[in-house]
């Protein structure tokens, strides 16, 4: 079993190292300097191994540190009950959520696929050795943080030390339950696709973890300790079940061939492609009276109405609902108005992030590639500059119009809220607020489509191959996220947004017309 574990660890390490080298090759400009020979470079392999070890250590400690800190320790002050008892109470119930949702054994990962199917390792030995290693990671990873934060919350040290063993034990018991469910009823559990019952349990445990303490009900420390001890002892008796279970390969064959799993990058891209393909409306009665490029684009939009039109309508309804509720609150609780008015007057930058989140541009570009350009770009006629630019024009019109619907609802809603909450002394704030939201919407529509046309990031297998595209999207997100913290009056920020959006659109459209005929092709 140890040999199998060592081999599986070596495989995992090998592809982590290769992923690291691959990531280096994706860096814009720098990546071109790196050759494929890098994969056999010893020094780089060592560096990659160090990175891999750092990642392994992070997976052991970092997540667990953040989990105990954020989900338990920092929330203790909300509750009136004794910190030590509440600390153990919350951890006790949250642990069950983790046991159901993070089983490790029923998580379909590429490691498992490579090891058991590509390399044909012994499924039982592979599963058990890696499972025990995971449980060891759980115990070692939690121990320092349950001790540190537990002691800070005045939990006795022996209970702090017992908690990690309880967490591992609960996972073992739930895994045994899932294995028995398969053995007796043939029902397979896929961690990535929890059934409705599991979701209900999650909400029940969430309520018990946070809701009960909120109402002043907390499990007495002695009861928590007894329950944890029972679980630990019970799990010890059930380890033999894990050892004797013989159908691991059978189970993984079912989980890992499920078409929703991530087995390898190719499969991942295939999954995304399949997901997008499923969005094609199969109703062939949908037709178009248009001609040429407009006809082609019109059919694309109509046959993807679930992804494009319906999604924009749903977002618009949600915004409308929120605005309506806000308006009711302002009407019935007038004292709330001053606060809302103050916020609205300086929080326009906040809506950059909101507009970024509700814009469908990136998803639309992905669908355009997967369901259309992926095949069409293999035809010579489709790559001719006039075809590229004519279709770009049609698409831009559609994307802008689709995104303008929720933007218009939001903009009108904000103007309405501003009026109801007391208004503004400068009448010009109203049109500026309205047009700046619309300008943001147009900006994001143009931005996503232009990025797609200038950096077309996908290869023939629908994998993203452009580091620059990833960086550009990352920077966009960071910029929008940063805007959450900015507070500028409506007039100033609105004017700046409108001017910036107009300039950005003009420059980027010029760039598309100049460069897209050269850049818009399938990546090699």
């Amino acid at each position, binding site marked *: 079993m140890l040999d199998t574990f060592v081999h599986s660890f070596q495989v995992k390490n090998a592809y982590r190292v290769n992923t690291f080298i691959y990531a280096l090759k994706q860096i814009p400009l720098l990546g071109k300097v790196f*050759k*494929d*020979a890098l994969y056999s470079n010893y020094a780089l392999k060592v560096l990659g191994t160090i990175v891999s070890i750092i990642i392994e250590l992070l997976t052991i400690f970092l997540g667990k540190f953040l989990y105990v800190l954020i989900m338990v320790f920092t929330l203790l002050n909300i509750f009136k009950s004794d910190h030590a008892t509440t600390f153990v109470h919350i951890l006790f119930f949250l642990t069950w959520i983790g046991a159901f949702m993070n089983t490790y054994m029923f998580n379909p990962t590429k490691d498992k696929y490579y090891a058991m199917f590509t390399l044909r390792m012994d499924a039982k030995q592979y599963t058990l050795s890696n499972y025990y290693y995971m449980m060891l990671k759980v115990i070692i990873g939690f121990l320092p943080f349950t001790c540190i934060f537990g002691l800070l919350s005045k939990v006795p040290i022996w209970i702090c030390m017992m908690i990690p063993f309880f967490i591992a034990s609960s996972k073992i018991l739930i895994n045994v339950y899932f294995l028995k469910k398969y053995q007796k009823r043939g029902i397979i559990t896929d961690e990535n696709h929890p059934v409705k019952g599991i979701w209900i349990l999650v909400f029940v445990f969430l309520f018990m973890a946070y809701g009960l303490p909120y109402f002043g009900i907390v499990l007495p420390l002695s009861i928590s300790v007894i329950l944890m001890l029972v679980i630990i002892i019970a799990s010890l008796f059930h380890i033999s079940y894990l050892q004797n279970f013989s159908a691991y390969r059978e189970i993984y064959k079912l989980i890992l061939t499920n078409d929703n799993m991530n087995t390898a990058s190719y499969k991942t891209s295939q999954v995304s492609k399949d997901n997008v*393909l499923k969005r*094609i409306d*199969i109703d*062939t009665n949908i037709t178009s009276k248009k*001609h*040429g*490029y407009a*006809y*082609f684009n019109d*059919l*694309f939009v109509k*046959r*993807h109405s679930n992804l494009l039109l319906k999604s924009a309508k749903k977002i618009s309804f949600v915004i409308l609902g929120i605005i309506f509720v806000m308006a009711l609150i302002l009407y019935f609780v007038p004292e709330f108005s001053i606060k809302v008015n103050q916020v609205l007057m300086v929080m326009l930058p906040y809506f950059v992030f909101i507009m970024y989140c509700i814009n469908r541009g990136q998803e639309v570009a992905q669908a355009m590639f997967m*369901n*259309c350009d*992926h*095949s*069409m770009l*293999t*035809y*010579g*006629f489709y*790559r*001719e500059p006039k*075809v590229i630019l*004519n279709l770009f024009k049609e698409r831009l019109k559609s994307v802008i119009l689709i995104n303008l619907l929720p933007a218009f609802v939001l903009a009108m809603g904000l103007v309405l809220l501003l009026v109801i909450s007391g208004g503004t002394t400068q009448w010009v704030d109203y049109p500026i607020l309205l047009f700046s939201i619309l300008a943001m919407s147009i900006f994001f529509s143009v931005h996503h489509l232009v990025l797609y046309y200038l950096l077309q990031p996908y290869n023939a297998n629908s994998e993203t191959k452009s580091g620059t595209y990833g960086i550009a999207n990352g920077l966009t997100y960071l910029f929008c996220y940063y805007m959450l913290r900015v507070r500028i009056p409506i007039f100033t920020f609105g004017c700046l947004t409108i001017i910036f959006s107009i300039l950005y659109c003009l420059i980027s459209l010029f760039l598309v017309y100049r460069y897209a005929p050269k850049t818009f*092709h*399938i990546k*090699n």
Partner: protein
Amino acid sequence: MKLKVEHLSKNFETKEVLKDIHFTFEEGKIYGLLGRNGSGKTTFFNCLNKDIPFESGTFTLIEDESRPLELSDIGYVLSTPNVPEFLTAREFLKFFLDINQNQLKEEKSIDEYFEFMHIELEDRDKLLKDYSYGMKNKMQMLVNMIANPNVLLLDEPLTSLDVVVAEEMKQVLRSIKKNHIIIFSTHIMELALSLCDEIVLLNHGTLTKIDRSHLTDQELKDKILEALTEA
């Protein structure tokens, strides 16, 4: 009409895949491009179709006058058929005819094109998403043929087709070869020998025409195998 390839070189990092290739293809012939796996057949097509950058090389189309080969001169049929799955076959053809109406030399109705490619009436208004592999292949070939390109590149197009569709495709290729230069890459030697007028080997980065005169099929096969297995 002739297609002249001169000084074509393509490297992948340090590996020379195509080495200063010089070759002339002639109208009215189907060229069977044979080579081992990884010999560079698809790379050669990708260079002709300007899908990938290459170190050096020119492609000249010689008719009454000589001119550089353009994208519109080429039809490229891939081994994996790619069609826009959100359209029906009829819609795909309509779009193609709409945007190319000024360039098409002969005007046929959409249904006439379908008949030419043996696409049944009941399949014409089905989404391409629901087409079988062979049917998608037919559509891909049809769209590439309608534009009537001077040069037709076919990258293993008959692999994975059932015998009936493969035979239909062969008939179609024979029927259009008169006014075209057709270059057909395949791994299947029997297919190359039965369909192609000329056999061209891509081996060690160079193109070599095999003289098949006075050779029986078996002798030709032996000659090809000998050439491809040479170190």
